[in-house]
């Protein structure tokens, strides 16, 4: 088998497919299950300073081209989260996603994460459906810069900045986040859905985030644009449901990928399937390592 190991920031990662934040990563049992299923790294659900119940159901809706969700940043809060994870092994393969309203909250959370023994923090600067958080923060370049500088100053964590595609100028935001070790692109698209027989929104929150196959073309464009402009490490996410999708991201510059909604289609087997598919592709196409194809279409 051709090696598929990769490197993101200072982290070597054996399998380049990760579990995306928010999908089966609220409970420690599920995080471990994804790691055992072949995820190189698993990112936790986004954790905030306080416990949040999230929105009432329906919080997800499967549509033809993917999925809509408005979970509402449900999370147990940093205290309960860390308590649950105290005894958990493989912390080196868990990235903790955090969200906050300002640099103070973010850096507080990051410090707690570091103290608890984790090495990577993913910043949710991009969730599109909760007021005051996520993309509302991530659309403001100064705030983004500030948050990353704070965390950088106060911790030794690897910082992954997860950006929103719901902006006029993604490059501007990427530049603001350039002190991060890597970009994670993209979070969901702001979207909605309707049931015409009840004449109600598909989600209790009305507006939600759109994920799955339908957003892949937008995610690929984001990765391409940001890689071309910044050359920095990128983790591609959005609409990956098989190995060929992953290859597309690598060719445009992603050093690793994350999978969320794909799990709905393929269940936990998706991690191994993609890992194997990548390896087979490299072999068949006569490449000797994953590195050789990363950014191949941008460099040439």
């Amino acid at each position, binding site marked *: 088998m051709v090696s598929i190991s990769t490197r993101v920031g200072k982290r070597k990662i054996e399998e380049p497919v990760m579990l995306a934040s928010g*999908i*089966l*990563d*609220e*409970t420690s*049992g*599920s995080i*471990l*299950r994804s790691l055992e299923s072949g995820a190189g790294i698993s990112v936790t*659900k986004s954790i905030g300073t306080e*416990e*949040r*119940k*999230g929105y*009432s*159901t*329906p*919080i*997800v*809706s*499967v549509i033809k081209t993917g*999925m809509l969700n408005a*979970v509402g940043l*449900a*999370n*147990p*809060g940093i205290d*309960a989260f860390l308590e*649950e994870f105290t005894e958990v092994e493989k912390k080196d393969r868990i990235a903790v996603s955090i969200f906050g309203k300002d640099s103070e909250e973010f850096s507080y959370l990051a410090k707690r994460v570091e103290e608890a023994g984790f090495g990577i923090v993913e910043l949710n600067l991009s969730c599109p459906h909760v007021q005051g958080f996520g993309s509302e923060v991530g659309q403001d370049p100064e705030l983004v810069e500030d948050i990353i500088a704070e965390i950088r100053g106060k911790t030794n964590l690897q910082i992954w900045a997860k950006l929103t595609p719901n902006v006029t100028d993604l490059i501007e935001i990427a530049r603001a986040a350039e002190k991060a070790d890597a970009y994670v692109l993209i979070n969901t698209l702001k979207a909605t859905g309707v*049931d015409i*027989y*009840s004449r*109600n929104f*598909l989600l*209790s929150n009305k507006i939600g985030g759109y994920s799955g196959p339908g957003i892949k073309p937008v995610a690929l464009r984001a990765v391409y644009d940001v890689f071309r402009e910044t050359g920095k490490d990128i983790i591609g996410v959005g609409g990956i449901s098989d190995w060929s999708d992953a290859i597309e991201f690598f060719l445009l510059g992603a050093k690793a990928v994350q999978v*969320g*909604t794909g*799990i*709905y289609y393929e*269940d936990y087997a998706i991690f191994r399937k993609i890992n194997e598919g990548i390896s087979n592709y490299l072999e068949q196409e006569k490449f000797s390592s994953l590195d050789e194809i990363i950014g191949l279409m941008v460099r040439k």
Partner: protein
Amino acid sequence: MNFSEIKEINSLGRNIFSIRFNALEEAMPGQFLMIWVPGIKEVPMSISSMDNGFEITFKVYGEATKKLSEMNVGDRIFYRGPYGKPYPEPVGKTAYVAGGTGLASLKPLINKHGGDVYIGARTKDELFLLDSNFHISTDDGSMGFQGNVVDLFLSIGKVYDTIYVCGPEIMMKNFYDRAGRKYGKNVYFSLERLMKCGIGICDSCSINGFRVCRDGPVFSYDEISMMDEFGVKRRTESGKIELMIKR
């Protein structure tokens, strides 16, 4: 999202109702639907019959079940599914041990395969769908055996090849602890946990890495044995883990 017109709605006991509606989908005993009450919420419900359309049987707890109980024949019921893994087919002598509305989930299996039914409830009024040869228990002794359904089961002491258990988790834990090992491989538990998505992506129903909605709701004794949270800890809506309190 699918919808169908309600064909039949019946009151079965105190705050217990069943609703029958046409459905084109196929379902197997043990599977469930996500029932959407637009403007209120979406809740998981076992399919209590899949012979002539679908039927759900529920107790009124809060807003969603209240609204459902007030619906009329001809109204639209919205649902998605069926979801989840069904009960395996029974082998040999079969028992069903149900607590409260847990009977709803077992009903299609009982109708199809027969066997001994043990059913427990807090009180007489909460019993429903009774058949004259069911073994009955009530906490308050208002009907049948006084005590819980596990006590009842053990007191009768019959031996079975296959046992299905569905009810409050505390009751199932009780069964697991006291009778489970004896029957080992052939006991199946149908779990109820807080569910948000119903399709295995939100993690809200997970118990030690098993998703009740997708890996379950039916689990074998061996699977349950891998869950140290079973009957001990549960998750709140935020995902916070807490000790389960007997309700």
